[in-house]
């Protein structure tokens, strides 16, 4: 492998390996999905800092809690659906209630599982986890951002959930930039409309801004990588400086980024808000891009919603 992979799962492995080889307190746990992110390599390089639990996600989160309460920094890797739902009570009561220093990586977030179908999608993970006190939630937009999120998660004291795709996510950041948990990144300035997106679909918001620019509509694009705590200031500024907001995410419209943004807008500064996401339904069988297309999580639909607000 000459070229470095930009897949979030590979960036996760490489970043954690780099940190864990210097810091023996960093642990990695998985529940029989280690092959997905190169766990065998980690077992070789940091053998004493890896725990395989077999297919037992609740047990895995319990073990991580015990490790965290003994001064360790455990990274727990599993599908987003099993973490946020199967192991939910462990996450809420064992991890969040005692503010245990556990870091979660939710693999195949949203509908990245594609044809694996609804059992393997997680369109409610963010909504569920954002209602837990002490939990921070990061949805990186690309591999580079995932690397920064992992480093920030180690620095942060307390539980952090990072949601990633499956592999080969779009690349957003060509150059280095400043990443701070809880601070949104304005990828593109604009004064007519704000497109606020999170995760892989930030790429669609950027494409939509290009499309709108051709018509003379100046769209601001904001990447909210940290859904909790939310960067309220940046959202309020968007409301003050542009004519409205379109939110974009790979999540049920209930519970996700759009809901958080709309709440801030309702509380602080009313402007029109349109939300793009999955409309409270289990989704059809299809490849990942096909599913996004079906439910309008696309550049063209984002642009349409922006036009509706601006016109």
């Amino acid at each position, binding site marked *: 492998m000459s070229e470095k992979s930009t897949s979030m799962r590979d960036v996760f492995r490489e970043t954690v390996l780099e940190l864990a080889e210097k810091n023996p307190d960093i642990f990695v746990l998985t529940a029989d999905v280690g092959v997905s992110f190169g766990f065998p390599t980690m077992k070789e390089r940091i053998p004493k800092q890896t725990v395989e639990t077999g297919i037992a996600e609740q047990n895995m989160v319990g073990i991580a809690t015990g490790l965290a309460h003994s001064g360790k920094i455990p990274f727990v890797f599993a599908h987003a659906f099993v973490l946020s739902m199967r192991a939910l009570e462990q996450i809420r009561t064992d991890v969040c209630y005692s503010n245990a220093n556990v870091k979660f990586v939710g693999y195949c977030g949203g509908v990245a599982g594609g044809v694996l179908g609804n*059992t393997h999608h997680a369109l409610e993970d963010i909504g569920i986890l954002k209602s837990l006190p002490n939990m921070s939630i990061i949805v990186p937009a690309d591999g580079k951002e995932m690397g920064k999120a992992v480093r920030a998660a180690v620095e942060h004291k307390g539980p952090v959930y990072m949601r990633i795709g499956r592999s080969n996510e779009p690349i957003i950041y060509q150059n280095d930039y400043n990443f701070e948990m809880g601070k949104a990144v304005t990828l593109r300035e604009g004064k007519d409309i704000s497109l606020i997106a999170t995760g892989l679909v930030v790429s669609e918001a950027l494409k939509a801004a290009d499309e709108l620019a051709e018509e003379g509509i100046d769209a601001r694009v904001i990447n909210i990588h940290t859904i909790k705590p939310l960067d309220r200031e940046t959202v309020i500024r968007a409301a003050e400086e542009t004519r409205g907001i379109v939110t974009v995410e790979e999540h049920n419209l209930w519970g996700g980024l759009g809901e958080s943004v709309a709440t801030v807008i309702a509380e602080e500064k009313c402007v029109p808000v349109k939300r793009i996401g999955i409309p409270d339904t289990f989704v059809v069988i299809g490849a990942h891009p096909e599913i996004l297309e079906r439910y309008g999580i696309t550049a063209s639909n984002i642009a349409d919603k922006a036009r509706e607000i601006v016109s």
Partner: protein
Amino acid sequence: MVQDAELVKRLKKMAAFIRRDSIQMSLKAGCGHVGPGLSWTDICTVLFFHQLRIDPKNPDWLNRDRFILSKGHGCLPLYSALARKGFFPMEKLDTFCQLDSCLGGHPDCLAVPGVEISTGSLGHGLPIAIGMAIAAKSDNKKYRVITVMGDGELQEGTVWEAAMAAAHYRLDNLTGIIDCNKLEIDGPVKEVMNIEPLKDKWKSFGWYVEEMDGNDIEDILSTLERVFGYKEEKPRIIIAHTIKGKGVSFMENQVVWHYKAPDNDEARQAIREIDLALTKLK
């Protein structure tokens, strides 16, 4: 036990057809859990083409046996068996994992006739089976509830919570079959997280335990006869020793074939091997 040679031959043929369907479906889709499907194909065949009392014309028939594929990722042979039984047209198999298909990577009970419950998240089947078995008793129905689980799946805590409950409620109408192929995603089950001694575990939980060669039609036939004929008021479990990827030499016992589709050459080779096994039957 003397068996009807014609029946055995018919089932062996059917198992080969189902294997062929599975290879073709995954080839066309470019994805699929091929190894996990091939592993329990012989069990699937005996269940659907000999044991299960089900009616493709009336999938919701109240007295039907209930079958739950708890290891939902192993759905390729299930789809093939349901189509070949007549639950839906064979052409549907060509749509496996295509946009808007009813046949996704894990079975969906609202979309596929003959599928009792949507599965894919491991460790869910046995508790649901218990609910159905309790309902059968409460309704004075004679139907049986059967579920197939993976051996790695037994690492889920819910399986053992259910194991306790089934014995507690003396569910003699419930049969679990463990597709014990000794592999899961991260490697051999005994290295990932040992589940042995399996037989002793189930016995101590109060179950009637049998073992069989889960890739041998004759053994499956006779073991199922024994298990369904067993009279004590206990739930039944069969530890089926199987080979992941069974029937295609280069897939057998290979972890990589857990989730991987054959390319054209591999599919051709696989079908050649399956057809060869078929001709030997004649």
